[in-house]
């Protein structure tokens, strides 16, 4: 399959550049195989990690760093860090950063870090972003590399809520709770009753969600045609 082949090539390139193991199957990410943050070799850890020097939360288009994440010189000897929710989020964001086959991956990473920082700023004891949620979002992005860049916000439970908005108030929103538990909402115009809208909503797994909603025709307007 050409698309998969392209993804595999990108993954191989990423592995070659960054020296991390990276797989493309649909199985859960094995966090023990993921290298440390940041994976971008241009990053300067000595300055990137210190709390208090990162951009403020509204600068998502700039290179973002994460408040309060401690420098981790050798994660493989600090197994306890892998138990930390923050560390898992950090590693999943790192995965998106190196997943160059995901369109707008750098922009996605900056947005996620900005949201993480904002959530931590508001509630320091919160997970920032739910690990299960970002895991599910990452798998969704891996599987659907044709999507336009979505609006991304966090629910009150720190879960990712991604929305695509089209003309005539069309909406496709996905609430990523976990791989097994994604919820969608679709608004589309009712051509026979222009003042009304057709609403579809439901729950599915992250891997089959797009197949489930295909009948609604959303792929016609949420796909990036580049």
């Amino acid at each position, binding site marked *: 399959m050409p698309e998969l082949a392209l993804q595999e090539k990108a993954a191989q390139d990423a592995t070659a550049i960054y020296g991390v193991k990276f797989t493309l199957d649909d199985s859960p990410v094995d966090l023990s195989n993921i290298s440390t943050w940041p994976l971008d070799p241009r990053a300067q850890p000595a300055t990137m990690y210190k709390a208090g020097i990162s951009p403020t*939360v509204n600068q998502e288009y700039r290179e973002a760093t994460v408040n309060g994440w401690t420098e981790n010189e050798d994660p493989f000897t600090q197994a306890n860090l892998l138990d930390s929710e923050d560390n898992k989020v950090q590693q999943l964001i790192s995965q998106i950063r190196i997943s160059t086959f995901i369109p707008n991956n750098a922009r996605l990473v900056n947005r996620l870090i900005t*949201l993480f920082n*904002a959530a931590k700023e*508001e509630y320091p004891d919160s997970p920032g972003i739910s690990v299960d949620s970002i895991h599910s979002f990452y798998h969704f992005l891996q599987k659907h590399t044709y999507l336009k860049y979505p609006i991304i*916000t966090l629910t009150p*439970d720190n879960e990712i809520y991604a929305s695509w908005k089209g003309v005539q108030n069309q909406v496709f929103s996905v609430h990523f709770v976990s791989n097994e538990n994604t*919820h969608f909402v679709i608004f589309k115009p009712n051509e026979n009753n222009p003042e*009304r809208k057709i*609403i579809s*909503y439901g729950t599915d797994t992250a891997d089959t969600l797009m197949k489930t909603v295909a009948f609604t025709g959303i792929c016609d307007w949420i796909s990036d045609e580049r």
Partner: protein
Amino acid sequence: MKDDPIPDQDHIARYCSFQKLAGGLPQPTAFMLKRDRPGSPTEESLSVNWLEYLECTDRISEIAEIRRIYHETFDVGAQAKMAVLNVGEVREKVRTESPDRRILQVLHDPIEPKDPSHSGIYNLRQNDRVIAELIAETVLESYSAR
């Protein structure tokens, strides 16, 4: 008085943290209830402030007063906003467009002495994503929360 319904012609302001904004605009996540967690109190309603209760002369004064109340009652995020909504529009939108024709109640729920205009949007359920989307479509204006 507590539990008085807020008239449909009146307005409410909802605090929206930065995580619930995109491009500075409130998104549906600003109108979702938190799920129940062990040890945490159940969120029964969406907290809002009743603007007309403040008896200010104009919207700008109302917003200034809400900012003062926010400042006195919790830590306001630097990028947070407040969304202004009309009570009748919210109720009508949800009643006519939600799949279960939900009738929301917007009730006065004063917190004395610091937040007497505090109110709530009731008859919401956890994970009411469709209704959160509908409410977000009724946002009239948004202002910086501080």
